[in-house]
């Protein structure tokens, strides 16, 4: 690509993104911004997610762009998804949804757009953490494994690929 073409492309992207952005001024937290969909995660959201997903196994992973280990862990999720296209993952960043550009940047760089994405949306993150688990003070990664019956196991720290694969295979076997 010549530098001139690149410049025009860049300009067009900026203009288009700017035009799209100007339409959504009133709904900054709205997921329909035309950019990567990131839903606001509030204190009642976990309960809503678990209700809506009842009956199937899935993983919910808390992460942050300030957590290098969390970003390294994304490779695990991509690999599991590759082996099991049905694998369902809910990503929740504890970064404020106000920092959506940076959150999106990381998710896109890490090729994580294909998963369901949420971001903390509360000026007091402790309010959300307290609803998720009163013992949790924000350490990451934090992973919730939900089985088809809705029972949940928490794993603190980076997930290992073989553990996730073993867990998922077990879930699938039990469903048959």
């Amino acid at each position, binding site marked *: *690509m010549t530098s001139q073409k*690149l410049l025009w*492309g*860049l300009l067009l*992207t*900026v203009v288009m*993104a*700017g035009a*799209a*952005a*100007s339409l*959504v*001024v009133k709904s*900054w937290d709205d997921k329909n911004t035309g*950019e990567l969909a990131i839903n606001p995660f509030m204190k009642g959201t976990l309960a809503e997610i678990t209700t809506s997903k009842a009956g199937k196994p899935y993983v919910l992973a808390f992460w*942050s*762009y*300030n*957590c*290098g*280990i*969390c*970003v390294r862990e994304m490779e695990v999720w991509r690999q599991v998804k590759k082996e099991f296209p049905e694998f369902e993952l809910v990503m929740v960043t504890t970064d*404020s949804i*106000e*920092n*959506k*550009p*940076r959150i*999106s*940047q990381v998710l*896109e*760089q890490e090729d994580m757009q294909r998963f369901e994405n949420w971001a903390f949306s509360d*000026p*007091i993150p*402790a*309010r959300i*953490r*307290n609803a998720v688990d*009163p*013992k949790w*003070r*924000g*350490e*990451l*990664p934090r992973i919730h494994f939900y089985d088809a019956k809705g029972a949940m196991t928490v794993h*603190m*720290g*980076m997930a290992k690929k073989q553990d996730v694969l073993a867990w998922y295979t077990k879930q699938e076997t039990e469903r048959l």
Partner: protein
Amino acid sequence: MTQNKFIRISFILLAALSFGSTTAVASDSKKKDKPAWDAIAVHSCPAGTTKPSPHCAPTVAGTFAEDGRLWLAWPNDGHVYVNSTTDNGKTFSTPVKVNTQPQSIDNNGENRPKLAIGPQGDIYLTYSIHAKKKYTGDVLFSRSIDGGQSFSQPRSINDGKSKSSLRFESIAVADSGEIIIVWLDKRDLFQAKATKTPYPGSAIYYIKSNDRGESFTPNSLLEHHTCECCRTAIDLDERIRPVIVWRHIFDGARDHALIRFDDNGLPGNLQRTSVDNWAIESCPHHGPSISIDNNNIYHLTWFTSGTVRQGPFYARSSDQGASFDHIVEIGADGAQAEHPFVLSESGIVYAAWKDFGDDKTRFRIMTSSDQGMSWSAAKVVATSADKSDHPLLVAKDGRVFATWRTADAGFRIFDITGE
């Protein structure tokens, strides 16, 4: 257009711009050499204040000078500013912008620009920036030797001998004027990676200066295998010997370690401050705090979620860190107690933290008048329904102040002496 709306629209346009440039770079060079993170996040000002002001900064760190002036360092849109107050925050001096070119400054509660004052009134500033490569950083140093009127161009404390990433620095000045800076450093990790050798965590390094920050000793290793993402802490034994505390990795357990420098200015043996047994590969973003009193009792606060104990804790050492006792959970009567900070001043030990109660964030304190053997009930200093910084304490001549920046009320200083 209201100012709020203007900020919001500018931010969205900025976001659009960053998306544009990301796309362009990504298509050509894949994931290599991404532009540094935009550190520019929205930080609203409370009513009646305008930027740049500590009221609008995400983090503010204060330190008293000998003359009773409280110096403050705070980031604002890619610049570090320094100003001061002589009336507990009613009025502030005109802020001085330290770095002329905007930088991506680490400005979360765990890693913030911070100050230390030299015996001749020098003001020393350190702060971390995000480097171009993801999850790497650099620590910069600047000083003012004209009473805060001007600051030197910030320079990296990395002596350039190895490719590295520096973050989570702490700075202190001994009564002799000797400056010490410690920080978490990834040079050994990078080297190990190059030779495919396992290397858990980061390392902790230090430098010293005996010429008011004109020059520093070479980057020196303090210890290998520290946790990567928790603030470090430092205080001085008898106002002379640096005592460093950080979250270490002991055979996989991310518990705390302490090193005291000896009379020759060299680091002593590593001491494990507690066995919490927190074996986890994670980023707690929850570092310790240390304060050493006039009787040389070490007061320590930290957070753990190990098998032995879980929560924020206080403990004391009367043998220069060799053993800690009188362990007390902080804020056990509330929810979500976090980021404890400890300060001893004129015979009273103060512990501060924030928690979640009455649907608000509460800045709480407790005190001990017997050197940490027993504690008062916890009190609430202030509350906020909005975003807030970590709680901090500063002291001068027996008076102790809690400083707190919240998005709704701005930056506030509370006199909590003897509370």
